[in-house]
């Protein structure tokens, strides 16, 4: 949700199974952040988080809402999906652990690096998942204050 200090807030729908469009939300977010004048390193980290999260929704969930909030100090991405949820979050956070299908792997994804890579690029990372309901990711990336008014 946008706060009084937000300079930008927008929500993006992501549809599960839509492999043809996969990555388009992340590319759009990257262009938006560049236009806002953020530091390139923060833009890159946010775009990578958005791409990995978008792929996870497309591969595993029915649908999700990806919310982007930018303030002078931080970029926040929250991804709230309706999907099967993750039975063992700790296992899912292990590099290389994957339940991807052959089709997903043929696209170059599903190597078990998604969640670890999201965490690696985040300054703050939280995950909450409930089997049968879905998964919520909350990621914060500090901008170092490089935001154009």
């Amino acid at each position, binding site marked *: 949700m946008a706060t009084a200090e937000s300079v930008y807030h927008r929500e993006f729908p992501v549809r599960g199974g839509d492999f043809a469009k*996969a990555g388009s939300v992340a590319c759009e977010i990257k262009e938006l952040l560049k236009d806002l004048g953020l530091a390139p390193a923060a833009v*890159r980290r946010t775009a990578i988080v958005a*791409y990995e999260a978008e792929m996870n929704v497309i591969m595993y969930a029915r649908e999700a809402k990806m919310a982007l909030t930018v303030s002078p100090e931080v970029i926040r991405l929250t991804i709230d999906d309706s999907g099967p949820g993750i039975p063992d979050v700790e296992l899912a956070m292990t590099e290389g652990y994957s339940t991807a299908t052959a089709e997903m792997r043929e696209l*170059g*994804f599903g190597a078990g690096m998604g969640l670890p*890579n999201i965490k690696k690029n985040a300054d703050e990372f939280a995950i909450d998942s409930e089997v049968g309901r879905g998964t919520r990711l909350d990621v914060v990336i500090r901008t170092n204050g490089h935001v154009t008014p």
Partner: protein
Amino acid sequence: MIALKDVLALLEGELLTPATDPGAAFLKVFASDLMSDVLNSAEPGSLLLTGLANGHVVRTCSVADLAGVVFVQGKRPAPDVIADALTKGIPLIATRMTMFEACLRMAGTVEDGGHGHR
């Protein structure tokens, strides 16, 4: 750093995006078919060598600030993928060489662009 024209010569490559900057150059090289590995480990400004030829390759390079792509072993992306690369200003190169041969040719001319496990 290696120039686009030198990559084309080394790999006997074909530039699929002639409208991109002919003066393009690449800081390092990263080789992978796994886009997750590219997102995780490839350094910005690198040239990607890959055997994968779908739209994810261009979107991954755009998101991770990679500067160009070589498709090995005669792989060629579809016209819409080439069009997307042109929009994003990412040069695409096709070579008939295997990944191994292409990596051998590039080795010694430019640094490894992977930082994941150092």
